[in-house]
């Protein structure tokens, strides 16, 4: 694989653009699903020590809801949509209210149904992200069924350490924050999309972006 530490600013910037295009499409899809305005931050390409993943994204012990997909194909990668547990619950309530017209507190919904709703949100966000990347790169992906987990942030991010740990000590991640605004409560619901390229797919990515 390419040595991540040797990536130059132009290359990191080009990878960031992938995040920009992916997240733009993900935000549009989420906005359509929820009929709400979605804001997004400017994506960051981050080089993160695999020993400090938990701290990097917040309080390692924070309980989060996460949806994970794996994409096989031209540019192999994994994607994770991660939210504080409270935000994940609000997202589920919002989606169900949108679909059924009535508000049901998440505590009164069976776990399988909340997970299924969360998985649906994650699936739409992450597959829209991937579709936009494919258009940009001229690649095709086969996307897995989403996996859902609720747990401590640092336990969830072990998956990133498992992907990058065998090759070195640094992970290259593209991180963006989406937030749903214009809610009656005045509170916004946030979530992070983290793109986790396979280490041995980075060279292909750079070549497709014409920065190698």
């Amino acid at each position, binding site marked *: 694989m390419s040595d991540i530490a040797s990536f130059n600013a132009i290359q990191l910037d080009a990878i960031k653009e992938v995040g920009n295009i992916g997240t733009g499409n993900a935000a549009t899809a989420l906005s359509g699903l929820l009929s709400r305005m979605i804001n997004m931050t400017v994506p960051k390409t981050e080089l993160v020590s695999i020993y400090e993943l938990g701290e990097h994204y917040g309080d*390692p012990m924070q309980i989060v809801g996460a949806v994970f997909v*794996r994409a096989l194909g031209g540019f192999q990668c994994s994607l994770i949509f991660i939210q504080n547990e409270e935000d994940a619950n609000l997202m589920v309530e919002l989606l169900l209210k949108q679909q059924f017209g009535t508000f049901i507190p998440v505590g009164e919904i069976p776990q399988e149904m909340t997970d299924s709703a969360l998985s649906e949100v994650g699936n739409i966000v992450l597959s829209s992200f991937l579709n936009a990347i494919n258009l940009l790169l001229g690649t095709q992906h086969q996307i897995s069924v*989403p996996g859902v987990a609720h*747990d401590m942030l640092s*336990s969830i991010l*072990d*998956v990133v350490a*498992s992907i990058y*740990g065998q090759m070195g000590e640094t992970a290259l991640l593209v991180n963006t924050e989406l937030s749903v605004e214009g809610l009656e409560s005045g509170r916004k619901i946030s979530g992070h999309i983290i793109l986790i390229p396979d280490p041995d797919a980075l060279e292909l990515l750079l070549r497709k972006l014409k920065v190698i």
Partner: protein
Amino acid sequence: MAENSIVLGMADLTVIRATTPVKLITLGLGSCIGLVVYDPNAKIAGMAHIMLPSSRGLMGSEKVGKFADTAVPAIIEQMLKLGAVKSRIKAKIAGGAQMFSLPGMSADFLTVGAKNVSETRQRLGRLGIFIAASDTGGNKGRTIEFSTSNWMLKVKTLGKGVSEI
């Protein structure tokens, strides 16, 4: 008297002499392993936060606690150096969960938890270290606390509460 606490990060490995009671802690283990070894007579204990099963011979500047195949021999060696007696050393293991299941998709990194468990067990077995207790696998993260006052390992799991092994 309050116990001193040592919190280990990813790939950390520590061995201590517990002249006064000490707590060894690892937070938020997912697919990683929390390995505890101890010799109650000599009052020596160690903990490692293992991330992956095998270094595949690729050890450069990396932390020895990162891989099961390097962490287990290193922690036992450090125990012996401090005066532990090999036949008295016991081990406890927690962690090795699979955080995400993707139906119809297989990938090495998804099942790394189970590989971590089996490699750690095998390495301990090869050195003749008895595994006194374990709480491994499943799909939930764990936070662990080992106390040298009673040589028990507290395992906290989200939604399942605390157990002592």
